[in-house]
């Protein structure tokens, strides 16, 4: 009796793939993806700290890798993921506090998150290159 009820096929909600992507849904999954990506960079952060603790030779190996084009590309990806997750996270904290649930506000904050992430990434790299050069 119990097994026959549990085996019965329950109605399922439509798969997410059939929906047209919208700013809200794209930013929702982007926040999650950037979080997972940043987890990988968190491993790199610990490796960098261990390299610094190990001595000048290990540190310079890590330093030289970060200076290669692939290292720079990875750092650029890290910067953008960081700012996207930071701005998206602040948007989520505002929602958690009960603010910004009107549809217009949600779209306005969404575009702000995208614009700020791009602007802060470019600003960070502009300052970084300016200081280095």
């Amino acid at each position, binding site marked *: 009796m119990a097994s026959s009820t549990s085996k019965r096929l329950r109605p399922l909600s439509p798969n997410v793939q059939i929906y047209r992507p919208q700013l809200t849904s794209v930013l929702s999954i982007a926040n999650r993806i950037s979080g*997972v990506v*940043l987890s990988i960079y968190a491993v790199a952060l610990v490796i960098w700290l*261990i390299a*610094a603790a190990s001595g000048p030779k290990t540190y310079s190996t890590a330093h030289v890798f970060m200076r290669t084009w692939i290292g720079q590309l990875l750092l650029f990806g890290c910067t953008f993921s960081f700012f996207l997750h930071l701005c998206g996270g602040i948007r989520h*904290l505002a929602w958690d506090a009960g603010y910004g649930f009107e549809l217009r506000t949600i779209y306005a904050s969404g575009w702000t998150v995208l614009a700020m992430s791009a602007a802060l990434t470019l600003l960070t790299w502009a300052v970084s290159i300016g*200081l280095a050069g």
Partner: protein
Amino acid sequence: MGKERRRSPLGRALGLGSAKDGVEQWWVERVTAVALVPLTVWFAASNVVHMSSDYATAITWLQTPLAATLIVLLLTALFGHMALGLQVVIEDYVHSGLKLPLLIAMRFCCFVLAVAGILAVLRICFRG
């Protein structure tokens, strides 16, 4: 049986239902998020300044009490937040028997990384 009968209606209601600590994870994820806003922004800004620097400059910076303290705090909040975030991701997408081992392995990894990172900072600090 006798014990159940002696309990007041309120006592019974309080003992029923969920484990009552479900909101704790949600709350800790938010608190660590709030902590990470200043910590990560400080770290990113410091890295922009120190990224191009050589070993000696980087070590001198890491040895300052402020930097060492903030990086240890950053690692603590970061890996706590990361464990809670990855837990939700695993719970949402992994439905096989792999779910529990993955959750435990992920927890262990976060813990190991946090300890390794903090120890690295302390080694740099107390090398003298």
